[in-house]
């Protein structure tokens, strides 16, 4: 069997690894338009921010392909699919036969058709990233056009390198696909504290030498303009081959297109009316497609969307239907804007269907997993938002502790036993330890035993340490 994969990005490279892990024999050829080995696009914002170096985001070692007998063709775009003879043809004329074909062509950055836009750099590929970094080295001010997830990460990264950054956004609040109005505003305030000025509800009309011209005529000064205006699925190859394409290449639950020998996964694919733009769904699709290709029976039923901002000092998680208000669902909300905290739970039919967590929170892991698994939401909603609230430490004051309270866990000694021991004449920790073994295990109860003995002595006006 000959498997050909078009696209060697996050989805394509994952599929190749998943297929090889399941089947050592299938002949695999993968074509990548970029000239380098696959890298983790999620980590590009780390590269922009200076946390990771470009070589640290590679997903596979150069030796991997030989070791796993996978033919990888870099820097070669597939131009045509010949479905009749089952071949793909590259733009440099190479013909490669396939039995099964996977399209993982991803998406392209949207470049708005405005005058001077060629002066701006889109933020999409590792090459883009390196161009931005080179430009940032010799620049004073930066403007990021687009306040979605990627735009916010780019702005944060550039601000972290010491550049004053202005973030321009068309919609009324930042990340409007993931956040409600208030969360968008709190995020803007948090970014402001990190040196990022946010302008929402503005339209970039052109890019010139001095910066970005808004449609109002106002100039937002910049030496570096970065575009993060969204992405568009790359579907021309599929469309030209006559496959069904709507917004993306239409696939069924096996990730097959309407040609059963051709699959599509990742950002170029449209499943059940949805085109996903995140990595997790692409990897879930890659696993299912790999299973089907190797004879398994897996099915893809859609993905739950969790968006996690990767930006230093900005903790933000958003999942599911975050926009819903009280009229459509049960909403639990906590807002403390002075601290950059905003938390929202959206609950319907006793299940968590959406959440926003802005600001550091120990709830993020629990809530993400509750959302992912679709399990019932506990009755104590506040406990979900504020872990640890319910388990405020009980007082270990000797006065208030009941006699049955265990003081020494290692030797199973209660306060009552220590009191009895005191009544029998022990007046210090050593005396209590000799009689009960309290404090002789891990030793962490020593202060508590001392406290109880001291309290008993003071109650009776007896000097501590004066054992009888």
């Amino acid at each position, binding site marked *: 069997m000959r498997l050909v994969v078009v696209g060697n990005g996050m989805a394509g490279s994952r599929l190749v690894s998943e297929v090889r892990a399941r089947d050592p024999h299938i002949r695999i050829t993968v074509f990548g338009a970029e000239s380098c080995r696959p*890298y*983790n696009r*999620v*980590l590009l914002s*780390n590269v922009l921010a200076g*946390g*990771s170096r470009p070589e*640290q*985001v*590679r*997903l*596979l*070692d150069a030796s991997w392909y030989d070791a796993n007998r996978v033919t990888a063709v870099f820097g070669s775009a597939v131009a045509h699919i010949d479905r009749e003879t089952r071949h793909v043809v590259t733009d440099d004329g190479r013909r490669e036969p396939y039995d099964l074909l996977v399209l993982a062509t991803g998406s392209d950055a949207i470049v708005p058709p405005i005058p001077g836009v060629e002066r701006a750099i889109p933020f999409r590929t590792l090459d883009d990233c390196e161009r931005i970094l080179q430009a940032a080295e010799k620049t004073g001010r930066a403007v990021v056009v687009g306040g979605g997830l990627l735009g916010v990460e780019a702005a944060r990264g550039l601000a972290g390198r010491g550049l004053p950054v202005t973030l321009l956004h068309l919609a009324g609040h930042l990340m409007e696909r993931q956040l409600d109005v208030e969360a968008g505003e709190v995020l803007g305030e948090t970014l402001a504290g990190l040196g990022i000025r946010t302008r929402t509800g503005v339209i970039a009309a052109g890019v010139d030498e001095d910066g970005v011209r808004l449609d109002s005529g106002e100039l937002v000064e910049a030496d570096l303009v970065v575009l993060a205006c969204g992405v568009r699925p790359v579907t021309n190859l599929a469309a030209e081959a006559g496959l069904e394409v709507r917004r993306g290449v239409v696939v069924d639950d096996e990730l097959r297109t309407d040609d059963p020998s051709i699959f599509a996964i990742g950002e170029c694919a449209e499943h059940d009316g949805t085109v996903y733009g995140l*990595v*997790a769904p692409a990897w879930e699709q890659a696993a299912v497609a790999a299973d089907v290709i190797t004879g398994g029976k897996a099915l893809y039923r859609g993905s739950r969307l*969790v968006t*996690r901002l*990767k930006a230093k000092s900005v*903790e933000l998680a958003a999942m599911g239907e975050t926009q819903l208000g009280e009229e459509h669902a049960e909403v639990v909300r906590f807002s403390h804007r002075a601290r950059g905290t905003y938390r929202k739970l959206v609950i319907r039919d006793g299940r968590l269907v959406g959440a926003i967590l802005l600001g*550091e*929170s*120990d709830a*993020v*892991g*629990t809530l*993400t*997993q*509750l959302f*992912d*698994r679709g*399990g*019932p939401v*506990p*009755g*104590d909603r506040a*406990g979900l938002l504020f872990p640890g609230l*319910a*388990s405020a430490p009980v007082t270990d004051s000797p006065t208030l502790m009941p006699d049955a309270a265990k003081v020494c*866990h*290692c*030797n*199973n000694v209660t306060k009552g036993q220590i009191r009895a021991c005191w009544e029998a004449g022990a007046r210090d920790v050593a005396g209590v330890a*000799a*009689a*009960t*073994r309290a404090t*002789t*295990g*891990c*030793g*962490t109860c020593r202060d508590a035993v001392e406290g109880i003995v001291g309290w008993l002595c003071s109650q009776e006006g007896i000097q501590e340490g004066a054992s009888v």
Partner: protein
Amino acid sequence: MSEPVKTHCPYCALQCGMEIGPEMGPEMGTGLTIAARTDTPANASGALCQKGWTAGELLTNGARLTTPLLHGEPVAWDVALDYVADRVSALRAEHGPDAVAVFGGGGLTNEKAYALGKFARVALGTSQIDYNGRFCMSSAAAASLRAFGMDRGMPFPITDLAEADVVLLAGGNVAETMPPFVRHLSGPRLIVIDPRRTQTARLAWLHLQPAPGTDLALALGLLHLAVAEDLVDEAYVAARTTGFEEVRTSLASWWPERVERITGVPVYRMRQAVRALAAAGNAYVLTGRGAEQHAKGTDTVTAFINLALALGLPGTHGSGYGCVTGQGNGQGGREHGQKADQLPGYRKIDDPAAREHVAGVWGIPAEDIPGPGRSAYELLDALGTPDGPKALLLFGSNPIVSAPDSERVAARIGALDLLVVCDVVMSETAVLADVVFPVTQWAEETGTMTNLEGRVLLRRRAVPPPPGVRSDLDVIAGLAERLGHRFATDPGEVFDELRRASAGGPADYSGITYERIADETGVFWPCPSPEHPGTPRPFLDSFATPDGRARFLPVQHRPAAEEPDDDYPVYLSTGRVLAHYQSGAQTRRIAPLVRAAPEPYVELHPDLAEQLDIAAGDVVRVSSRRGETKAVARISDAIRRDTVFMPFHWEGANRLTNPALDPTSRMPEFKVCAVRVERLS
């Protein structure tokens, strides 16, 4: 007894030093006083836990076995030994030598473990020998071997921990399992990884609470952060390790936000943990069974070792990686040949040079030593099957309680033609035996134990055994004699032979003598000659690999063998409580310990309890695909909402656990499976 006798606690791998004297102590009725020694570093401050203080009760306890039993009836020793030897000979004649299997334990002295391995290979000629340490230390051992070339649980003295700035403990609850250990952790900042807020986690500066079965992802996320934040000790990595580049590439798939979604541990908490570890002048990474008892336990430990290596910890003064060995002789027990693939001195049974050396000591041709046999669970699962063993000789283990999928194991044991059990008390497994031999316990015998540090210690006889009780060494020698072989019964004589057999191996004991142990209160292996001082920190100059460098190995997280679903919607994790040890055969017969922890329970979060309409004290049924058991509900917000916990010291919990095995270590997945919990009306 006129003078107090210096010995060690019978229970965990800390092997606290204790003195047994004649007077009455506060644990009335034992006729003995137990005092904590102050010359043994593990508990030098005079610490013992309740298990240690009350250990003397089992010496005089009425539950003690004092006569051999044949089909439940008391018989003379010769009758029982003759019977076993005859049956073993008949089964061997009919089915071949592998028809007889031997199962040992990590609580046996080095002398017993050595004699048992030799007995299997020489007197029985069987390859079918393994031991319960497979359920305990095998994942950490396999990971240490492949990273460092040698497995000495903690390759440093325990007292070094106190000098560290940070200690990360992954899947260990020492405050419960070995309380005096905690005294060594009072100095450093403690980071604990555990799905429960355990007694140990309560002491921690930072507690990370991942979903069961996701420790591997968490370790990868921590290492990803170490790389992303430039915290890697590049000079150390270049000088002392190999393989980092491949690991670095493999980490690109484990960015922290992805790991957060898998583990439930917030990214900022991971960041705190890594930064604290990296900022520390001295730091240790330790793993326990929580990280290890998984079908991916070896890779999980490897991921934590990779983290320690990236931060430049192992093999340096004051820092390192170690595993916290559990059973009393869990370290020595895995070194001297009761493991299916191993010969004395931590030698490999398929290594021709190792076979030659050991065959020379045993006085047999090397080709007479059988090859590797089945691992513990696979061995138990093969009992009484057409290709499997027909007889089992069991020493120091209670698999009816302690093996995974225990009802299946019970059925296999039930299919045997012959079950022989050596034990101190009538354990759940001994009840099923054709023949039971009553054997000596800690204070009644002499021998060596190797504690969690790799320090070889001397267990000394303080009291005579009750009449009718003999050592496991006597049972082995008695059977060997009837099969035509002479085996020593004196522990000193056995130890001298062990020293010769271990000479030149990784765990070289040849320079260690009882006298030296007594004089030096323990000797660290390897100790290749009487003049050699022993090796407290074996990796300071180089690792035990061929090139002297530690090996990074790329590993990938994968889900547990069984994840919750609609039918079995919550995770079960199993573990220990302070008052009991292992299968509870000893501790469930000691009154103060039973008062402290009288019955099996299941711990669940208040929110889960509310959903299931369960109140504290309710009797609930816990069921998995493999079986079900009853337990009393305890409600606690110290556990995750998606997880319940059961202690495994009583028969029941292991009816539920999943025997999915680690491909390398053959460790069963004790720490995670899917269950359903229901209130019984």
